[in-house]
């Protein structure tokens, strides 16, 4: 009885917590909340004549195409004809449409307010953001990307307001009030630079079409801090209409997909061998005069050209598989495996994005000689693009493995929590990093992709063309074409990885991923005000 009495005497109102906003590094909005309205009707209140008139008036507002007005009006009328007290008419109306409807002064209709996500940049950064859908109770919940990873921070805590009401249901000014304030979600300020993100997306979209690839991805990172400056993949989806896309699109290929890195991996193996002082840039290869026979397999170079007594420097320039077998053998399985672990392979990079995958490293006792040989040129080993880019960043920054981070600050109404750069470990010595950088600069200047390089800039990089394993064998026509590099080589502002999945115009990284890398790099030089030095 007491409870019933209280129910009649008090009015409880739920106070929704506003979902946190997501900002680019320059504080421009990437994702925010936006109220929308749902129109409902009260069929028992509206007369038959009014229903007919109302249907046409509303249809004219909802539909731009005049030929569709009749059909829309019929739909509305059907809703209003139901023998119900309350019927939904239209969802997701914006404020302008609501105002138009209100100006009609119609009786028997009303609006409910709902909150949705709003993306000023449209479908940009979809893989980075993830999307906001519904949970089991119909509330908002973030899935994938930042929305999923930072769900706890972004969602906030709803509150409620209880106040005494009079007979008309109006609040009594001197009545009892009980408030539990809603805590709005925290805002995220990203490391993502919107100019770089925009540039990367534009160039990738063009590249996908130009090279007829199935998919393309790129990630740009500050090698000194691990800050992710841009991250994009295509084909993509629209986070506001995520339900219209296949769930295959939701995964972020940069963190969730695994691939065989191919020749881009050579720089890591070579850096390991240099670091252990097992080889030097001028060390000559004594097995590089032809295909290397190992465990019943013949290991060839990508173009079947062989360079007897080639140096390690030239092994990288020519992307010589036999030279890398030589380097891998010099390193030995124990050291090879140790460096793989030190570069961060076999463990998540701990990037702050949901759905990161981390393929396991094969246990050391399961490696055969041929596995070591193929892994030394990046075949037969699975990694994620984010693992690759942060491993190469360790060459760019003097040998340190950094933890990649998309978010720079988490802010609430009172406090700001800054996410500081985190160094995991030193993988190679500073001097090794310098030597390896010079070898990568030579690879760009004299390698297969030299034709696409912007003149005058010192860029360190390496192409990669990895065949895709299909049903137990490698398909020679299906490749992952990639290019990884950093610039300016002496004081890198960015490290970048570009990946094409099954490009059709050319299967090679030097003819697809490298030009895309250089095109983005050219824009970044202008953006960072970097002048050519050569």
């Amino acid at each position, binding site marked *: 009885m007491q409870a019933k009495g209280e129910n009649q005497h008090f009015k409880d109102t739920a106070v929704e917590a506003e979902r946190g906003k997501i900002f680019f590094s320059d504080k421009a909005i990437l994702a925010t909340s936006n109220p929308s309205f749902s129109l409902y009707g009260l069929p028992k209140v509206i007369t038959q004549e009014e229903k007919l008139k109302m249907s046409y008036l509303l249809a004219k507002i909802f539909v731009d195409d005049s030929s569709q007005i009749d059909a829309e009006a019929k739909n509305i009328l059907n809703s209003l004809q139901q023998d119900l007290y309350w019927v939904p008419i239209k969802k997701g109306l914006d404020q302008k449409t609501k105002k138009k409807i209100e100006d009609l002064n119609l009786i028997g209709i009303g609006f409910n307010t709902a909150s949705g996500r*709003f993306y000023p940049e*449209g479908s940009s950064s979809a893989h980075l953001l993830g999307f906001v859908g519904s949970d089991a109770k119909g509330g908002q919940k973030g899935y994938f990307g930042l929305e999923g990873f930072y769900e706890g921070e972004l969602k906030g805590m709803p509150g409620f307001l209880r106040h005494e009401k009079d007979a008309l249901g*109006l609040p009594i000014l001197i009545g009892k009030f009980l408030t539990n304030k809603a805590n709005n979600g925290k805002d995220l300020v990203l490391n993502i630079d919107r100019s770089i993100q925009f540039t990367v997306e534009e160039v990738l979209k063009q590249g996908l079409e130009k090279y007829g690839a199935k998919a393309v991805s790129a990630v740009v990172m500050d090698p000194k801090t691990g800050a992710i400056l841009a991250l994009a993949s295509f084909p993509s989806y629209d986070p506001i209409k995520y339900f219209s896309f296949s769930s295959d699109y939701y995964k972020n290929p940069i963190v969730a997909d695994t691939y065989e890195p191919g020749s881009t991996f050579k720089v890591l193996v070579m850096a390991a061998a240099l670091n252990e002082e097992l080889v030097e840039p001028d060390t000559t290869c004594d097995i590089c005069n032809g295909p290397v026979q190992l465990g019943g397999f013949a290991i060839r170079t990508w173009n079947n050209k062989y360079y007897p007594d080639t140096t390690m420097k030239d092994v990288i320039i020519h992307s010589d598989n036999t030279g890398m077998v030589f380097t891998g053998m010099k390193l030995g399985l124990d050291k090879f495996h140790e460096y793989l672990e030190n570069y961060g392979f076999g463990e998540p990079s701990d990037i702050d994005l949901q759905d990161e995958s981390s393929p396991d490293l094969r246990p050391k006792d399961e490696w055969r000689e041929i596995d070591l040989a193929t892994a030394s040129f990046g075949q037969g080993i699975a990694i994620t693009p984010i693992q690759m880019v942060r491993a190469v960043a360790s060459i760019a920054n003097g040998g340190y493995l950094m933890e990649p981070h998309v978010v720079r600050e988490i802010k609430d109404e009172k406090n700001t929590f800054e996410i500081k750069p985190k160094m995991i470990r030193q993988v190679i010595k500073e001097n090794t990093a310098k030597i390896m950088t010079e070898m990568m600069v030579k690879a760009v200047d004299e390698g297969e992709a030299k034709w696409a390089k912007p003149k005058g800039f010192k860029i360190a990089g390496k192409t990669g063309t990895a065949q895709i394993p299909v049903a137990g064998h490698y398909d020679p026509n299906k490749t992952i074409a990639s290019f990884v590099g950093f610039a300016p080589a002496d004081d890198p502002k960015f490290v970048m990885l570009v990946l094409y999945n099954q490009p059709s115009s050319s299967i090679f990284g030097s003819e697809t991923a490298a030009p895309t890398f250089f095109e983005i790099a050219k824009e970044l030089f202008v953006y960072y005000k970097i002048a050519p030095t050569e």
Partner: protein
Amino acid sequence: MALLLCNCPKTSFMTIIKKFDPEEYSNKFPKKYVVFAVVGILVLSIAQIWVNNTAVSYGEKLESIAKLKSTLEMENTFLENEMASELSLTNIATKSSKLGFSKIESIQYIR
């Protein structure tokens, strides 16, 4: 107060001397305070009744203020979002190409 009997002849009359104690007199609560208190309580009671009656009728106004606050907050959000849309790079890129701006093709560096 004390009654004193005098040792007088029979014909003489008994005299009653009333002794007033000044302390007893000072303990007495002045009537005017009582009057003030009663009047005060009366005024406050009337004021409370008036405030109650007046305040209760403000419920409608309170409700409308709450609605206005909510509407203004919503409009503020809409305006913020509209600004963000206008300032988005996607929008700027579209508008700039319409206005005839194009990408820099060749940069001359001055040494």
